[in-house]
């Protein structure tokens, strides 16, 4: 699966996150930037959840920027999935 256009999903409300996704060329890989209000505590976990959703959807090359406002895993999964679907 390939991201073909720039998309965004989510919001900057509390308990939500904003995902911005942009296409990258073949074999450029995943470039993931995370900015979270709980970066120190949960930064690694957010990275893990985002990577898992990208992998499950077969996304090999994309730039992803996350601005997190304290979202639960299920919200992170939902917003990344929405951004992917909007970008295909």
């Amino acid at each position, binding site marked *: 699966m390939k991201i073909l256009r720039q998309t965004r999903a989510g919001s900057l409300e509390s308990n939500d996150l904003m995902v911005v996704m942009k296409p990258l060329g073949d074999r450029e890989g995943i470039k993931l930037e995370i900015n979270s209000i709980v970066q120190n505590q949960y930064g690694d976990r957010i990275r893990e959840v985002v990577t898992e959703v990208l992998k499950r959807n077969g996304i090999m090359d994309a730039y992803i920027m996350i601005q997190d406002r304290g979202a*639960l895993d299920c919200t992170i999964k939902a917003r990344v999935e929405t951004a992917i679907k909007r970008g295909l």
Partner: protein
Amino acid sequence: MPTTMIFVPGNNPAMVQNAGILGADSIIFDLEDAVSPDEKDAARILVRNALRSVDYGSCERTVRINSVDHPKWKEDIAEIAKGNPDSIVLPKAQRMETVEMVQGALEEAEDGQRSIGIIPLIETAEGVERVFEILCCSPRIKTVIFGAEDYTADIGAKRTKEGSEILYARCRILNAAVAAGVEAIDTPFTDVNDMEGLKEDVKVAKSLGFRGKALISPRHCKIAMEIFAPSGEEIEYALKVIKTINQAEKEGKGVVALDGKMIDAPIVARARKVLKLAGMEGGNHE
């Protein structure tokens, strides 16, 4: 058997994740009116993920999909079925065929899971006139909700707090529900800040025979639950009825009286309902 069903906007993560602690018996995650057209995809994915991972305790989990005249109502069902909710709430249910279409889409989407219920939302003049046939057309229907806002817009009436303009619809839906063996839930009270108005409205709904109330604000939960809960007097009388009838059965008596009034089948049935609502199901309480 819910007495309070609260609407929660389906694209609001804070409300979706906390819906289980708002105090209602049942949650209605809303994909319809509470979600803007360009966020429908995000809402159905968010609700599906939440249904799969958030523990809502003993709350019933339902989802209001978009009505069948929306181009993507089938996508709502396909996505939401993966979260295995207890029921879907079907807005603008106005014909048997509408329910059958939705039932067909659910059968395709369920893939061998447990059967997902359908809760018709009766909110059009045609829906009110056809309510009995709608409620009888699927074994998935155990509850019906009345939606007065769309209904009054449909008939061209002004919505008032006193509610005389919706009395006919309330009574017709309620009668059809009882005849079909379905629980009827009354329309939400839409003024979030008017607690006295809410009390009056819930009392009217209860006096007509509704089993519960749909709500749009967590602030309304406590009042609605208190009014719908059986009173101490009602419970005490119900217990006396059941005790009397049990004693009569043991003694082989056909006809019995309590406080000078004959206890017949409807009185016993009402007593059992009161005890069920009070969480004292079974009726063999001394």
